[in-house]
């Protein structure tokens, strides 16, 4: 298989898989789960098969259709997209293992629709990751919104549908109202939307407009959940936990920050943007989101909502890192996407495991639960420490790089924000850890032990990844350093 066909096959596999899952679901649940497993394994095989080529500096690309002059559907794989696709496809496998345990353990309805839409969402994610120009990216970005809507609205009762409406409304209206005009603007001044090393806007746009266009992009990409367009993320927590874990900690939200990073690096160009005074606001806006979301997270009583606000803060880390506009910080942005993904998916897995085993959803109910569910809570602890950025976890690595980038740029706002938010993260995670391990259960509640085996297996795997990434992050850094080679 040539790399060019591999790109198309990678997008096609989950599509075919969605169909196979839908058909297999009519025959038996076991066959359906087998279809999911085969699909995600073959997706990993194809996507990860591209890695060696990318490490050697290859940039495979393929054009599918020239829709109109200057407007084409094309794919091009570069380090950022490669990393994102490898991350999403790899975690999908673990998440599928978890989903089977979770959905069966909870006896959820419409499981076939659930697994089919999940595959569809993955196809859209890979499309976003491999998109070669803004138009293609937008196409898959919208597809990702639409394919995840049924997953958010899964339960189907009035409150869920209301939340799902917020989800869809915010994401669609920002993308059509701000993101699309930004794309149109870009095409109209640059004549192209291809992701090009060094950017395509240099010399074509002047100062106040640069900041405006950047604003249209950043707030138009609602998936990045920058305040004030973050409301959809807490709303999306009504979805079953595997959806929150993979989509609202990894695929969907990372698609947002990934898109912003990609636009900063390949549309604006970091040097061009660094020179423009009107782009400086982005660091402040991201810093504001980090601090505010962390403060809001402090006040949450529901586990998943707390994790949602923590995600909002962590996403803005990536945006802030990208907005520092220095090579080390760009690497930090990419690394943080991975580091946060491992940690946060572990936390969500743990929250779901608690729900399956005990139906508990609130933080105050967690007193002493560490004794009943030692594996789950150990993983939860590792995830929390990674969020705070304590070594030896993945979160430390990315914070290190972002801080290094901030010093490189002499950006004291960013430095201060990282320190302050680390304190805040510790302030909302450490009390939970204390409660879990050192307090006693108040009244004798329902007797329960660990969650189903598959659930525990999945969350232990991701916790291990969180630890392993601290030690074995070399390949990722090598790959992402290619993005900024020869810059700054």
């Amino acid at each position, binding site marked *: 298989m040539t790399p060019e066909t591999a790109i198309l096959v990678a997008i096609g596999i989950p599509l075919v898989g969605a169909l196979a899952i839908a058909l297999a679901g009519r025959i038996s649940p076991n066959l359906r789960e087998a279809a999911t497993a085969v699909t995600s394994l073959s997706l990993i095989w194809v996507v990860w098969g591209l890695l060696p080529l990318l490490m050697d500096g290859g940039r495979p690309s393929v054009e*599918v259709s020239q*829709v*109109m002059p200057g407007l084409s559907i094309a794919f091009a794989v570069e380090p950022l997209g490669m990393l994102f696709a490898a991350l999403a496809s790899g975690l999908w496998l673990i998440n599928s293992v978890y989903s089977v345990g979770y959905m069966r353990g909870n006896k959820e309805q419409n499981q076939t629709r659930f697994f089919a839409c999940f595959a569809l969402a993955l196809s859209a994610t890979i499309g976003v990751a491999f998109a070669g120009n803004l*138009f293609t990216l937008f*196409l898959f970005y919208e597809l990702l919104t639409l394919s995840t809507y049924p997953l958010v609205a899964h339960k*189907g009762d009035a409150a869920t549908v209301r939340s799902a409406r917020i989800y869809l409304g915010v994401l*669609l*209206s920002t993308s059509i109202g701000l993101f*699309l005009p930004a794309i149109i603007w870009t095409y109209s001044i640059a004549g192209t939307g291809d992701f090009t090393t060094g950017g395509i806007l240099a010399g074509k746009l002047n100062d106040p407009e640069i900041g405006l266009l950047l604003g249209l992009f950043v707030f138009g990409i609602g998936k990045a959940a920058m305040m004030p367009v973050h409301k959809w993320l807490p709303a999306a927590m009504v979805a079953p936990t595997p959806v929150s874990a993979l989509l609202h900690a990894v695929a969907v939200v990372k698609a947002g920050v990934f898109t912003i990073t990609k636009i900063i690096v390949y549309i604006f160009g970091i040097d061009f943007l660094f020179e423009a005074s009107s782009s400086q606001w982005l660091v402040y806006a991201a810093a504001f989101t980090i601090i505010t979301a962390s403060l809001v997270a402090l006040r949450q009583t529901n586990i998943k909502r707390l994790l949602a606000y923590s995600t909002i803060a962590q996403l803005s880390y990536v945006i802030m890192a990208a907005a520092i506009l220095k090579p080390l910080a760009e690497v930090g942005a990419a690394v943080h996407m991975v580091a946060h993904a491992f940690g946060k998916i572990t936390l969500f897995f743990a929250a779901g495991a608690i729900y399956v085993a005990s139906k508990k959803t609130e933080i105050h109910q967690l007193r002493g639960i560490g004794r009943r569910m030692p594996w789950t809570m150990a993983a939860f602890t590792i995830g929390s420490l990674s969020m705070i950025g304590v070594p030896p976890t993945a979160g430390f690595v990315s914070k290190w790089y972002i801080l290094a980038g901030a010093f490189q740029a002499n950006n004291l706002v960013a430095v201060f924000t990282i320190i302050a938010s680390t304190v805040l993260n510790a302030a909302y995670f450490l009390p939970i850890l204390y409660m879990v391990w050192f307090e006693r259960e108040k009244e004798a509640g329902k007797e329960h032990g660990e969650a189903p085996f598959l659930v525990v297996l999945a969350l232990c795997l991701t916790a291990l990844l969180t630890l392993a990434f601290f030690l074995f992050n070399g390949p990722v850094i090598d790959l992402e350093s290619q993005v900024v080679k020869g810059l700054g």
Partner: protein
Amino acid sequence: MDLLTHLPALQVVVPMLSAPLIVLLQPRGLAWAGATAVAVLSFAIAVALAIAVLDGQTIEYAMGGWPAPYGIALSVDAFSALVLLVITGAAAAALLAAKPSIDQQIEVERQPLFYSAWLLVLSGLVGIVVSADAFNIFVFMEISSLASYILIAGGPNRRALPAVFKYLMMGTIGATFYLIGVGLIYMMTGTLNLADMEARIGDVTDINPILVAAGFITIGLALKAAVFPLHVWVPNAYTHAPHMVTVFLAACATKVALYVLIRFDYMVFQGKLDDHEIQFAMFVMPLAILGILIASAVAMFEGHIKRLLASSSIAQIGYILLGVSFVSMAGLSASAMHIFNHALAKGGLFLAVACLAYRYRDLRLNQLGGASARMPWTCAAFVVCGLSLIGVPGTAGFISKWMLIGAALETGPWGWGLVAIILISSLMAVVYIWRIVEALYFQAPIEGDAPMSEAPVQLLLVTGLVALMNIYFGLFPHVPLELANSAAALLLEGSR
């Protein structure tokens, strides 16, 4: 005899002469088969014509060999070929799917008459498009209108009768206005042939009657085309017509009137009357914008699925007019493209509605609960066509919206305002399409409903095919795009 050279004539003659013959096909099912065969043949002729004019040339045809100013002239260029494709394609697709739905809605003994009227509408509409003569356009307009009154009133729904009466009144006023205008021009120029009119209108010394004529013709055709605020006949007519008739007429009927409006104005008036372009733009653009915004807003609050889609059609006509009002190459090709793409999207939506209507008696949104479980394919097709109507990338609807936005940006500093209007109305489309999607997918079924299954395969296949075409033409729009670009170039050339 070389058949190819006679295609413009055959395009009209085949359905027209078959119409009376269909009445004779009394045995069950035969009338449908005959009418469908004729519609498919017409579509094939339209495809052949489109291929012939793809490179931008114009086919002129003189009926009976009489040369143009005296005899009846027909002409087909890229613009007419595009509209012919839409008309015949809509007629053929609707008829191919129609049998189960028509059998359910119209008594067997009246069916031959019904199909005969259908073919008359078809021949009238294509006749309007191929005519190169202002009076023949009027004649064909009357043929298609009268026959379409029959189609709309032909269903079992008695509320169709007042609806059709309103349509008849408005339609007749529109046609009369048009005729008055044509009469005035004839008085001043002594010709009815459009090309001839264009040549002679410059020599007219007293320009006032021509100005009055331009007013009458524009208003008359705007009535026929359901341009806001002359659209009041549309919602009822579409809602109460038999479902398959709605598919056919919603896809193409008003667009044919728009076609004449555009053709007449660009060919005869523009470039010949002082400042006509500006007057035209200043007259049409506000109506287009109001239509887009108000009709979309109305659609957001409609409770009946057919009325909702009918309101959306009025907004979409606004898009087409908006492009026309730019009087630019980009604007005109965007409009021509939207004629094609909107026919695909709206035709597909109404086909899906026809599938739903085959099982659901009541098409109000709050009655459609549980449809997605019972009719998954229908609902999937509806979603795809709905996305195309919204203009989501990857679907046909995106292409024309993208072109329209590009054309709006060319108009100068006001362009961003127009872009904002287009985007706001797209968001409104999200709202009204999503109301239907939620009703189909997330609303609980009504208690005590009889169990239902998917629509008949025949209906479903065509619906699915049209839905797929919405995606195909979103990814590979080259053929309609080329036609639209040639059409725009020809129209602008004609306006000089």
